[in-house]
């Protein structure tokens, strides 16, 4: 954005069609150009792609098996063979950090999917049907939003018990009310539009109306917010794993590694600091993209 102001020819500025170029730009194109004109967002996207690649290609990239405990020594400081050192069971820390990307991205992706589906359903149904359903659902949403997501996540996990899919569900549940809020407003607005009334007047049923007319109009915003909230989901997973409520031990997760490493901070600092850096960069990448997407969504917020 900084260069867009200094240099009116920069991609961020093409939004104003000048008289010499009467070519109209579609909304989608304009959004894309705003996004690509935002250098930090593009950097973020590149970082995400690299992290996704690392997660998929983990078996090729990791120098050792992340579960292999056959090495005789434990808690070795960084060396040429083991760039980040060995953990308390003699496993290669670098390999575990690389494999850790899998759980982080998987939980991030699926919990946003679960939360998105659940929250959108709540928001759209509340907005569309109104009345008592509306006030009951939205009151519940507000109460859930009032609590910090870590506390809601803890409570849900306390009830469900540990496990990968329970974790995904717990995080999804904490994200759902945010989706409900985002889906609710536009649904209310679209519900009153003529085309919806017209569709209803020719006898289109509620279910079809919701699917064909309401959802597509709410979808765009939800997609953007979904990618934004992936950052919180990944951080929440790491936080819960750090507390010790994450996926069962042999599977490498960043949060758990950070926890195990804290007591060895004086001898093998990379035991915690390595996975921590990976986690920080991942959350940062998603936040960079989210920031860029917010600019696309809300041109007024552009500085």
């Amino acid at each position, binding site marked *: *954005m*900084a260069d867009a*102001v*200094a240099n009116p020819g920069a991609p961020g500025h093409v939004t104003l069609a000048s008289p010499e170029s009467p070519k109209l730009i579609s909304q989608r194109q304009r959004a894309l150009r705003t996004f690509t004109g935002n250098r*930090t967002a593009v950097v973020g996207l590149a970082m995400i792609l690299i992290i996704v690649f690392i997660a998929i290609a983990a078996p090729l990239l990791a120098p050792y098996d992340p579960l292999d405990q056959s090495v005789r020594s434990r808690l070795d400081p960084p060396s040429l063979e083991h760039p980040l050192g060995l953990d308390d069971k003699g496993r290669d820390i670098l390999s575990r950090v690389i494999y850790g990307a899998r759980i982080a991205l998987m939980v991030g992706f699926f919990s946003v999917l679960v939360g998105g589906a659940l929250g959108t359903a709540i928001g759209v149904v509340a907005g569309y049907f109104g009345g008592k359903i509306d006030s009951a659902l939205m*009151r*519940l949403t507000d*109460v859930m939003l*009032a*609590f*910090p*997501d*870590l*506390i809601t996540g*803890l*409570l849900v*996990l*306390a*009830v469900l*018990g540990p496990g990968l899919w329970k974790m995904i569900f717990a995080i999804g549940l904490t994200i759902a009310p945010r989706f409900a809020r985002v889906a609710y407003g536009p649904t209310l607005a679209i519900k009153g539009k003529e085309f919806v009334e017209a569709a209803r007047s020719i006898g289109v049923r509620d279910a079809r109306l919701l699917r064909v007319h309401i959802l597509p109009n709410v979808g765009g915003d939800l997609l953007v917010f979904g990618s934004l909230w992936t*950052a919180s989901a990944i*951080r929440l997973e*790491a*936080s819960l794993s*750090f*507390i*010790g*409520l994450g996926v069962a031990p042999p599977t490498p997760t960043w949060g758990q590694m*950070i926890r195990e490493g*804290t007591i060895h*901070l*004086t001898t093998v*600092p990379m035991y*915690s*600091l390595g996975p*921590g850096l990976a*986690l*920080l960069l991942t*959350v*940062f990448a998603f*936040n*960079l993209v989210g*920031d860029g997407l917010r600019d696309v969504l809300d041109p007024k*917020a552009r*500085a």
Partner: protein
Amino acid sequence: MIRHIGRRLLLAIPTLLAVFTIIFIIVRVAPGDPAVAALGDYASADAVEALRERMGLNEPLWKQYLTFLGDLTRGDLGRSLISQKPVSEQIAFVLPYTLELTAASILIGLILGIPTGVITAIRRNTTTDYVGRTLSLLGLSFPSFYLGILLIFFFAVRLGLFPAVGSAPFSEPVRNLHYLVLPALTLGLIETAYIARMTRSVVLTILTDDYIRTARAKGLEEWVVLLKHALRAALIPIVSLVGIFAISLIGSSVLVEEVFARPGLGKLMVGATKQKDYTTLQSIMVVYALIIVMINLLVDIIYTYVDPRVRFS
């Protein structure tokens, strides 16, 4: 003023009731018999049955619900399933530590965050702004426990300036504060990122307002325009957002208390979660709900001071 606060308190009652009901339901649907959880898997059926009777678990659900609410109004939070000690005693012991940590963090966040936000807003689109914004985005990407570990690594392990983990009682104020520095800095720095970012965007919006142009046009010095006109108006949204941040801070304090092995509400909750101590868990949630309501009330009260429009309405 007092009437205003009183009305706000009354308005909070239905919300609290809704929260308490949800907490009650969640704890009841939790799998596993609390009596078995308290006595262990090898307890005899008779012992379990006796405890169930004593805990009131054999009563119909609606009666349990009314007892739960009745006890709450009397300030009785019940006894821990595991230790059998009154939960309110435990909470009263740890609550000051959590409140101390939260208050210190917000203070750090305000002191560092507001000036940073104002400066990046004035120097908009310069290198200062760019660096400040990237740093604050990095700051709010920081998982609090990771920042805590980094601070421990540099300031406790390497430099030995502060104790790495632990705490000291309030009866020894100097040691207590010495132990507070790193945890408060952890949350305070993250808070700084949030507050700086928000202050920047609030000030930017205000600087385009007509009355700022008027103030400049009548020849006021720039710092007067900024401090007396812009920042005062900016305080209104800042107060309400800081309230929201304070609530999320209560969430992050769970992690920081884990990292620094500090006593606190969060640490108590983590312990209760791992031991499936549902009565303690239920009471902690009640306390969290009360804290959140109190923070919102506090925001409302501060509002009447910073925004003349809402005074005594």
